[in-house]
């Protein structure tokens, strides 16, 4: 790897640098002038783009726990090659969320208060703790990759022995806070539009994050293959896509049953912005990908697999934005549109997250060779030496 590569200007590098510079200025402006000057938030719409993006960061990182569970708990080793990308995605997603939260908090200097000031009745308290614990778990889950790189075999062995404890804890923490993001809105039945408000919100959030998280891994695998000119493990990705398909169908059926039993079907016939957005969300995030993924030939086709993953992710983004922004707009009595600073800080953090992902992938054995992993289950010693050679 050549070190001077980094200074060679390309179109995307220039764009990224511009986004980061503008974002850095907006960050300075936000902290020196306060939320009122830098955001379009107001009293009846106190949450905006940043909270919406927190939902996305956490939801799209969901593969971190599903894939880890599949491989390490259920021992389905077929998915082993995507464990590391999934965990890395999760870790970077959560780092993004923590940064955005700090920016969004009115009193960021008090961010540590939930550690010592408890209110166990608060969903927000539970989410805070789960995110702290799960981020720690992610660091521990990713630690072996770093240890491998630096050939620290002794701690590596210790980690491998106790790793199952982290994995199980990670799955539990994730299940709790992924669903709790939905629970946040249980207390606002009068505010959130009935198309999205439901006593099953936590269940909907949990189900949708699984499909979106896996789609994110499919999406990343394609980008990674393009960036580093490596092959794509189509058989693993199409198996993952099959899980996405099942997940989308379950999510849709649950929604359907709930709409019928709660008598909410009537809202689908009322023409309004919310209704159109809801239809768009279901079309992009459920109908189209379900249609594509139902065909085996599409599921095993690179192009369609990629398209369907983009659709699922877009539908997921739309859903979370609808719950956190659009679905609340009518009751807030004013239309919230994110300010320039809100957008530029968010864009800066997304660019930084992408940069961090690339940097780690370049320097650590994240997307490792498939063959090595198949051997890995049989002969661990042999693999270790091989992986270090690859990384060098």
């Amino acid at each position, binding site marked *: 790897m050549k070190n001077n590569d980094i200074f060679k200007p390309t179109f995307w590098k220039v764009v990224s640098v511009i986004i980061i510079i503008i974002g850095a200025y907006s960050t300075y402006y936000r*902290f*020196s*002038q*306060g*939320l*009122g*000057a830098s955001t379009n*938030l*107001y*009293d*009846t719409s*106190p*949450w905006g783009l940043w909270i919406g993006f927190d939902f996305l960061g956490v939801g799209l990182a969901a593969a971190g726990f599903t894939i880890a*569970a599949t491989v*390490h*708990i*259920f*021992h*389905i080793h077929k998915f082993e090659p995507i464990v590391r990308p999934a965990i890395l995605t999760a870790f970077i997603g959560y780092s993004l969320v923590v940064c955005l939260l700090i920016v*969004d*908090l*009115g*009193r*960021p200097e*008090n*961010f540590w*208060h*939930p550690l010592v*000031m*408890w*209110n166990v*009745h*608060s*969903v*927000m*308290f*539970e989410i*805070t703790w789960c995110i702290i614990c799960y981020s720690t778990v992610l660091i521990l889950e990713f630690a072996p990759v770093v240890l491998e790189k630096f050939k620290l075999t002794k701690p590596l062995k210790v980690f491998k022995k106790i790793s*199952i404890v982290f994995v*199980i804890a990670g*799955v*539990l923490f994730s*299940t*709790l806070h992924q*669903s*709790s993001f939905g*629970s*946040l809105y*249980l*207390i*606002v*039945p*009068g*505010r959130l539009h009935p198309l999205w408000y439901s*006593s099953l919100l*936590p269940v909907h959030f949990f189900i949708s994050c699984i499909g979106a998280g896996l789609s994110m891994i499919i999406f990343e695998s394609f980008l990674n293959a393009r960036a580093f000119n490596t092959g794509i493990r189509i058989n693993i990705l199409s198996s993952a896509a099959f899980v996405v398909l099942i997940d989308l169908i379950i999510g849709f059926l649950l929604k359907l049953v709930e709409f019928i039993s709660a008598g909410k079907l009537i809202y689908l016939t009322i023409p309004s912005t919310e209704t159109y957005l809801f239809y768009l969300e279901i079309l992009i995030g459920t109908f189209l990908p379900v249609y594509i993924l139902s065909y085996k030939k599409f599921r095993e086709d690179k192009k369609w697999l990629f398209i369907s993953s983009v659709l699922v992710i877009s539908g997921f983004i739309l859903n979370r934005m609808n719950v956190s922004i659009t679905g609340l707009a009518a009751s807030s009595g004013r239309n919230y549109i994110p300010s320039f600073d809100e957008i530029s800080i968010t864009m800066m953090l997304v660019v930084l997250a992408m940069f961090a992902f690339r940097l780690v992938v370049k320097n650590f054995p994240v997307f490792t060779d498939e063959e090595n992993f198949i051997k890995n*289950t*049989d002969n661990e010693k042999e693999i270790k030496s091989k992986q270090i050679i690859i990384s060098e």
Partner: protein
Amino acid sequence: MLKGKGILFDANLCIGCGACYEACKEKNNLPKTNTEYLKDHLSGNTFTVVEQYGNNYARKLCMHCDEPSCVSVCPVGAFKKNEFGAVLYDENKCIGCRYCMQACPHKVPRYEWNKTQPRVRKCNMCSDRIEAGGITACAEACPTEATLFGDMEKLVAVAKKRLQNNPSKYYQHIYGIEEAGGSHVLIISPVPFEQLGYTSKLPNKPMPELTMQAMDKIPPVVAVGGVFLTGMYWLTKRKNQIAREERKLSVKHETIKADEVNHEE
């Protein structure tokens, strides 16, 4: 039944003079926010307003719910309900997540958006005056008994009596007696409450119960999930181990067979 102390607002008696508005500003050292008090709205510097709806006037202020959403949602417990029923905010605990503002069924808490160390602001029921044995500034300033302060039981009795004595003048319901599980601010009015801008269609049970339905499931999810995952870990591991051993055995058998073939040759 609601205990402690509270405020009764009677829209029938309110003349829209704005004395409560001014008294509240003075008591809480709040700067002037509008030249016309009837056009002002709740904000970081305004804890109560008088609004005009046709011939009627309506006061808006923190309802001091019996089981407040803000107290239940705050991750750091910055909101507390005090002994006589006021809902109080502690700015030293607050992290500024603004979940209280999102969750309040009456959309009351306001934020100091233009400060770098912002606080959530709302009516505190003049708790310092109450503790010293006094009454709230708004009730003291009111010239017509439209705003009364006192024991909840007495206020409910007064409200019921007014509704009974003048059934033609009053819409026959006390707002706040069961809305969102009841509140320490009660309102009576000549017209249905949504016509005066109060949040209607609130459930009659405390709002935090909606969250508790989900939070209650956390311990069983953790327990069952933990046992299930650990169980699956051992089961699948064992299954793979057996499969591997069988594979080894069959390899051994093959080599033995091959040896035998060699011997025979």
